[in-house]
């Protein structure tokens, strides 16, 4: 028996968003009488943390404290249209819509503040909920006071509407020419594996990746996607199939007993660095990261197996059996 070490790399791109039928999302923001801002979305948090990153984006764009922003998602009676959470689009689309809505609400707020302070709106600075006159920081008020004044004195709404639409792209049926995405994120993953030449088992020792995601809104949650994707990608490469003898239907899986995904004992060492090259059209330069992280590990692992034992197994999942058969076929060829 011998165990063989191998290293493989994969460099990938990933498109943000879709365009098949036009890809819009809307947001509404309104200010409550005491200066809280409610962001109304019909969007969905799948666990990736959308509710949190949108609150960050809204607070940043409005110039108010994070805790004063309420994000209300997931109700079609109270919030306008969102295409949905998929295609690595949510932070990009929803974030852009929220910035647009925030800009309108912020302008309305500063208009009222300007009246209250007898200053020109363009001379006002709004930072972290505090408002002051540029060059005269002693002339100041805050969102709480202005919101109260707007509601009870000026009869003004402080609210904003936002939409982001990626236009539908035509697709030339003869050439395939189209505009398939908004921006591209990128990644390179290095996989290190150990292959047992008696059993064909592949143990992934390490997945080290560099991800370029435009701009991180919340670095811990980006890391959460990277680690998540590393494990899901490894699982896709080595373990998972609904039809173990595809295209045959035999032994169609029905439980986690035969549909194998990793446990806490199966995970490799996972390392990453994140690069930020802001995109031209994402909110603060965001590119989508959610889906990409599960992609680069797959070919990196398959390439590492080739590096370790010199056989190509390019039919996923790379089960121990497929590796062993490939090794046996090769030894028949060489003897």
């Amino acid at each position, binding site marked *: 028996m011998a165990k063989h070490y191998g290293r493989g790399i994969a460099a990938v791109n990933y498109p943000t968003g879709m365009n098949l039928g036009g890809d819009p999302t809307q947001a509404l923001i309104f200010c409550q009488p005491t200066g809280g801002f409610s962001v109304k979305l019909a969007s969905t948090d799948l666990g990736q943390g959308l509710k949190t990153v949108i609150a960050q984006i809204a607070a940043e764009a409005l110039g108010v404290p994070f805790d004063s922003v309420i994000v209300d998602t997931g109700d079609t009676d109270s919030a306008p249209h969102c295409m949905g959470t998929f295609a690595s689009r949510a932070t990009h689309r929803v974030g852009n819509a929220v910035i647009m809505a925030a800009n309108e609400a912020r302008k309305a707020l500063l208009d009222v503040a300007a009246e209250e302070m007898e200053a020109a709106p363009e001379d006002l600075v709004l930072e972290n909920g505090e408002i002051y006159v540029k060059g005269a920081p002693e002339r100041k008020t805050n969102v709480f006071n202005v919101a109260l004044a707007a509601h009870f004195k000026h009869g003004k709404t402080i609210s904003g509407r936002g939409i982001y639409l990626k236009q539908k792209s035509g697709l030339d049926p003869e050439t395939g020419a189209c505009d398939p995405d908004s921006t591209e994120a990128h990644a390179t993953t290095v996989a290190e594996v150990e292959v047992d030449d008696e059993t064909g088992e592949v143990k992934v020792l390490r997945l080290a990746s560099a991800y370029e995601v435009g701009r991180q809104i919340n670095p811990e949650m980006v890391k959460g996607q990277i*680690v998540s994707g590393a494990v*899901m990608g490894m699982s896709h490469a080595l373990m998972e199939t609904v039809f173990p003898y595809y295209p045959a239907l035999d032994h169609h899986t029905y439980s986690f007993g035969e549909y194998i995904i990793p446990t806490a004992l199966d*995970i490799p060492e996972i390392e990453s660095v994140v690069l930020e090259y802001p995109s031209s059209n994402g909110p603060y330069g965001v590119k989508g990261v959610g889906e990409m992280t599960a992609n680069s590990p797959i070919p990196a692992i398959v390439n590492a197996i080739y590096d370790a034992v010199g056989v190509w197994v390019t039919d996923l999942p790379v089960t121990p059996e497929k590796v062993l058969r490939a090794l046996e076929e090769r030894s028949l060829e060489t003897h």
Partner: protein
Amino acid sequence: MESITVTFKLNGKTTAVAIEPLESLRTVLREHLHLHATKAGCGQGGCGSCTVLVNDEPVLSCLMLAALADGQEVTTLEGIGTPPHMHPLQTAFFDRFAAQCGYCSPGMIMAAKALLDKNPHPTRAEIAEALAGNLCRCTGYVAILDAIEDVVTQMQEA
């Protein structure tokens, strides 16, 4: 057979409930007693999201006849901590971003609690072994292991 009544100590409080004979403990907790922290992930014993403690031992409530809880002590996630008085494991899971979609979190935390109650100083490998029956599809487990290790460290320092 008509419905039967089982009486057990649930999160420290004696509870009597009328059940159908073959109902699982999970069904009774969620659908009769409306303690929804215990999740229904597979009903097959494969995911661990319905893990609760019976007499301080972790069991899968989807595979346990509720009738067998009679006279036992059952602890669910609701019984170990609620805001603002969270269990240290809950705090650590929150601080470490160890919950993404959150669906496996109750089972994970109960499995971790069962471990730490018995072995306050587990290694990372022992922690992973204690979670072998709990699947997570979101986090890749690293943050979960980190969170539990944080609690182990806190207990060592305390």
